C-alpha cells in the first residue's frame, strides 16, 4: 500500500490487487454527524445526498449512468465521524471514477429545487427507519446516553431540523468540509500505483485547500448512574437495549472489549461495510445461551465499532413472544454480572481470537471491502490502526478482558431502553 499526500493536503492511499479486472475508489471526508451543531442535525447526511445531484461539469441528467456504463456500482454513506463515496467498476474506468470524485469535492451545485425535493426524500428515509421499533429504540438509547457529545443525535437528524434547514445551510457546510485537506482518497484494485497517482494529481491537484477546520472539543463527561427509558407504542414485539459508553478505536481498552463482545455475542469483525451482512458465529456465545437457548429471546446481538471518540457498546435483544422484558433483562444482567465478576475463560479467549482471525480474512475478500477499511481507519485515526489490528487482537490477555469488563459493564455506565408494545 502506498500512502502519500498532495500539496493541497489530499491524502492518497493506493493498493494494487490484481485478482480481478476491477478497481474500487473511495473518497472519505472527515465530517459526520458529530460535526453538526444544534439546529443543523442531519446536515452531513443531507449534503451526501446533494452530492449525487450534478456538478459544474457533470450535468444533472448525466449523473445517472456515468459509472453504470462501466458496469460499476456506486454508493455513499454518512455516519458519526465520516462521509464517504465509492465507485467499484472495471479498472478501465479508474480515470472516470477519479473525475467523478474530484467534481464531487469541488463543484457540486446545490440547486435550490434539488435541495427542496431531497428534503422529502430524506424525511421519507427517516420515517422508513422509524417503522422499525428496534431502530427507534436505538436512536432513543443513544440520545439518552450522551448528554454533551454530539454522538447523541441521529445521523439522519431530528425531524424539525430537516424541516427547517435551508439551501445556504447545506451549501455552506459543503464548502467548509469538502476540501482536499479534509479528505482521503483510496484506490484498491487492478491498477498501476504510479500511473494511478499521476491521474489523481491530474484530477485533484488543482483543487485549492480550505481553511483549517476547527475540531470538536466536547468530551462526554463520565456517566454517574444508570439511565433508563421506555417507549410504549402500538406494535407486536418487545425489544430491549443496553448501551455502555465504550472506548474509542485508539484506546487500549478497545481490543479487550472487542474480545469481550465476541465472547458475549460472537465476533463481527471490524468492517462496517461488510461485517454486519453475515451474522456472527454466536451459538456458544454467553448471551445467546443465556437468552436465546433459554427461550427468552429470538435474537441477541452486540455492536462495537471503531470510532474516533468514545461511542457506545450496545446489546440488543428481541424478546420472545411469551417472555417479558423484565425476565430478559434479568437474564442479561445475570450473564453480565458473571463476566464482570469472573472475566472470561482461557478457552473463550482462544475462541474469540480464532473467530476474529477468520472474520478479518473474510472481510478482505473484495477490492471494495479492502478499500473501505483503509479509508475508514485513516478517517477515524490512522490507516496504521487497520494494519495493527490482527496483532493487537492476538496480544489481548485474560486480565485485560477482565479489566475492560469491570470498567465498561459497570451499572453506572449503562443506559437501558425498553420498547414495550401496546
Amino acid at each position, binding site marked *: 500500500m502506498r500512502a502519500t499526500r498532495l500539496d493541497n493536503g489530499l491524502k492518497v492511499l493506493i493498493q494494487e490487487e490484481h*485478482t480481478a479486472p476491477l478497481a474500487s475508489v473511495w473518497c472519505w471526508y472527515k465530517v459526520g454527524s458529530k460535526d453538526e451543531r444544534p439546529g443543523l442535525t442531519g446536515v452531513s447526511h443531507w449534503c451526501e445526498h446533494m452530492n449525487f445531484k450534478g456538478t459544474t461539469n457533470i450535468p444533472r441528467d448525466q449523473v445517472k449512468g456515468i459509472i453504470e456504463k462501466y458496469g460499476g456500482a456506486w454508493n455513499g454513506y454518512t455516519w458519526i465521524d465520516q462521509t464517504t463515496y465509492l465507485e467499484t467498476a472495471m479498472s478501465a474506468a479508474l480515470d472516470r471514477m477519479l473525475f467523478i470524485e474530484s467534481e464531487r469535492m469541488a463543484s457540486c451545485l446545490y440547486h435550490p429545487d434539488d435541495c427542496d425535493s431531497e428534503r422529502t426524500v430524506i424525511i421519507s428515509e427517516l420515517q422508513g427507519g*422509524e417503522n422499525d421499533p428496534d431502530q427507534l429504540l436505538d436512536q432513543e438509547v443513544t440520545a439518552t446516553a450522551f448528554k454533551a457529545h454530539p454522538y447523541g443525535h441521529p445521523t439522519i437528524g431530528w425531524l424539525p431540523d430537516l424541516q427547517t434547514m435551508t439551501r445556504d445551510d447545506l451549501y455552506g457546510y459543503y464548502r467548509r468540509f469538502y476540501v482536499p485537506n479534509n479528505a482521503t482518497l483510496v484506490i484498491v484494485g487492478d491498477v498501476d500505483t504510479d500511473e494511478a497517482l499521476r491521474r489523481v494529481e491530474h484530477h485533484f491537484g488543482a483543487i485549492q485547500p480550505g481553511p483549517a477546520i476547527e475540531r470538536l472539543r466536547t468530551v462526554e463527561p463520565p456517566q454517574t448512574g444508570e439511565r433508563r427509558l421506555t417507549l410504549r407504542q402500538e406494535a407486536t414485539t418487545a425489544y430491549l437495549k443496553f448501551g455502555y459508553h465504550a472506548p474509542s478505536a485508539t484506546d487500549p481498552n478497545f481490543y479487550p472489549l472487542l474480545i469481550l463482545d465476541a465472547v458475549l455475542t460472537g465476533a463481527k469483525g471490524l468492517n462496517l461495510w461488510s461485517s454486519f451482512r453475515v451474522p456472527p458465529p454466536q451459538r*456458544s456465545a454467553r448471551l445467546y445461551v443465556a437468552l436465546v437457548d433459554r427461550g427468552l429471546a429470538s435474537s441477541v446481538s452486540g455492536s462495537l465499532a471503531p470510532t474516533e471518540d468514545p461511542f457506545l457498546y450496545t446489546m440488543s435483544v428481541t424478546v420472545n413472544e411469551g417472555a417479558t422484558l423484565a425476565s430478559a433483562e434479568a437474564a442479561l444482567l445475570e450473564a453480565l454480572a458473571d463476566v464482570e465478576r469472573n472475566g472470561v475463560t482461557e478457552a473463550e479467549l482462544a475462541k474469540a481470537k480464532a*473467530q476474529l482471525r477468520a472474520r478479518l480474512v473474510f472481510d478482505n475478500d473484495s477490492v471494495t471491502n479492502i478499500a473501505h477499511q483503509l479509508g475508514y481507519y485513516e478517517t477515524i485515526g490512522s490507516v496504521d490502526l487497520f494494519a495493527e489490528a490482527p496483532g493487537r487482537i492476538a496480544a489481548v490477555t485474560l486480565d485485560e478482558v477482565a479489566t475492560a469488563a469491570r470498567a465498561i459493564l459497570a451499572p453506572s455506565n449503562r443506559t437501558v431502553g425498553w420498547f414495550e408494545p401496546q
Partner: protein
Amino acid sequence: MSLNPVRTTLDNGVTLLVKQATTTPAVAISFSMRAGSIVDPAGMPGQTWLLSRVIDRGTATRSAAGISEELDSRGITLTIIITRHLFSIGCRCLSEDFEAVLSLLADIVMSPSLPGDEIATRKGEIITSIRQDDDNPAIRASESLMALLYPDGHPYGRQTKGTIDLVEQFSRDQLLKLHADRFAPSELTLAIVGDVDPVHAGDAVARVFRDWKKPAPTAMRVSAVPAATERRRVVIPMMNKAQADIAYGFIAIARNDPAYYACWLMNVAFGQYAIGGRLGDSIRERQGMAYYVSSALDANIAPGPLTIRAGVSPANVDRAVASIDEEIVRLVREGLTEKELDESRQYLIGSIPRSLETNAAIANFLQVEQFFGLGLDYDARLPDLLRAVTLEQVNDAARRLLDPDRATIVIAGPYEERSIG
C-alpha cells in the same frame, strides 16, 4: 475470463461444482437441496422453514452444543436460506478448516436428529419473527401481493414461515418425514469456491457422501397461474407506522421463457438502472417522494412476479401509485429508447466481473447456473445473450408484462382508503 468450474456427479447423484480461487485463504461452501418451501405438505406452510431452523441443531453423532462449538471455534456462521424451490446451507471458512466443515455440513444434511427441545426453542423464535413481520409494512405489503397474485394456497403465494397456529402444531415426526421424503442425493448440488484444489475437494466430497443412498423423490410440479384480468387494490392500514409501503405487481415469466433476456433488460431500464431506473427518476429524483423505489423480476421455474416497491410518506401514496401507472403507460406506449437499452445492456455486461468477485458470489452464481440448467459456460455466453436482444423485443416484453389495468396493488402503512372504487 470464464469461470470454467469443474463439475462432477457422484454415483448416487450428488452434483459438485468446484472453482479454485486464491484471493484469500478461505473457501465458500454452498449446499442447495431441491427442497424449498414448495415441498411443504398441503395445508402445512412453514414446515420447511421450521426444518431449516433445527436441521443444524444435532445429528445422529453430534449434539447441538457440539455443532455450535465446531462452528464458533472456527468463526463460521451457517447461512440457511429457504426459497420457493431450494433449501440452501452455506458458509465461509478458512481453507485450513475446509474438510472438517464439509464433513459437518454433510452430516447435518444427511442425518439431522431434530431434537424435541430444539424444535420447541426454535418454534418460539419463529413465532416472534412472524409477529415482527406482522408489524412490518414492507413485509405485509409484499406478502399480501404474493398471496393475491398466487391465490388458493399456490406455493408461490404461501407465507414461507407459515402461521403461528400451524407452527405451534408441527411435530418432530412431521419434520423427520419431510426430511426423509425430500432430502436425497439426487436433489443436492454443492458449489465449492476458494483456496482449495479441485481434485482434493472432489475427493473430500466423494468420501463424505458416497455411502448416502436414497431413491430420488417424486418431482414437485408448480402450476402456472392465470394473470389478473382486472386492477386490484388492497389497503392494510397500520396507523402506528410513519411510512407507507407500496407493492405493485404482475405475474411475469418463467426463467426458461425465450423472452427472459428482453424482460430482464426491460426491468433494469424501468426500475433498476442507477437508482431505480425510470421509476427512480420520476418518483425519487424528480418528485422527491420516496427514499426507495424499484422493480424486481423474479423469473422462476413457474412464471414468477415482477414487483414494484416503494416506501413513501402517507400523504404521497396516491401520487406515487399514479406515477407508477404513468411510467408504465409511457413505457408501453412509447417504448424504451435505443440509448436506454444500450445503457442497461452495457451495465449488465460490465457488471459481470464485479458480481463474480467474491467466493460466495461465485458459489451462488454456480448454483443458479446448475438449478436453471444454464450450462457451465453461462458466464462466458451471457454478454452475447444480452447483446442479441433487440429494442423491439424489449418493448414487446413491456407490453406483455405491464398494464395498469391488470395491476395488483397493496398499500400497507398509516393510510386508509378514502373512497372505494
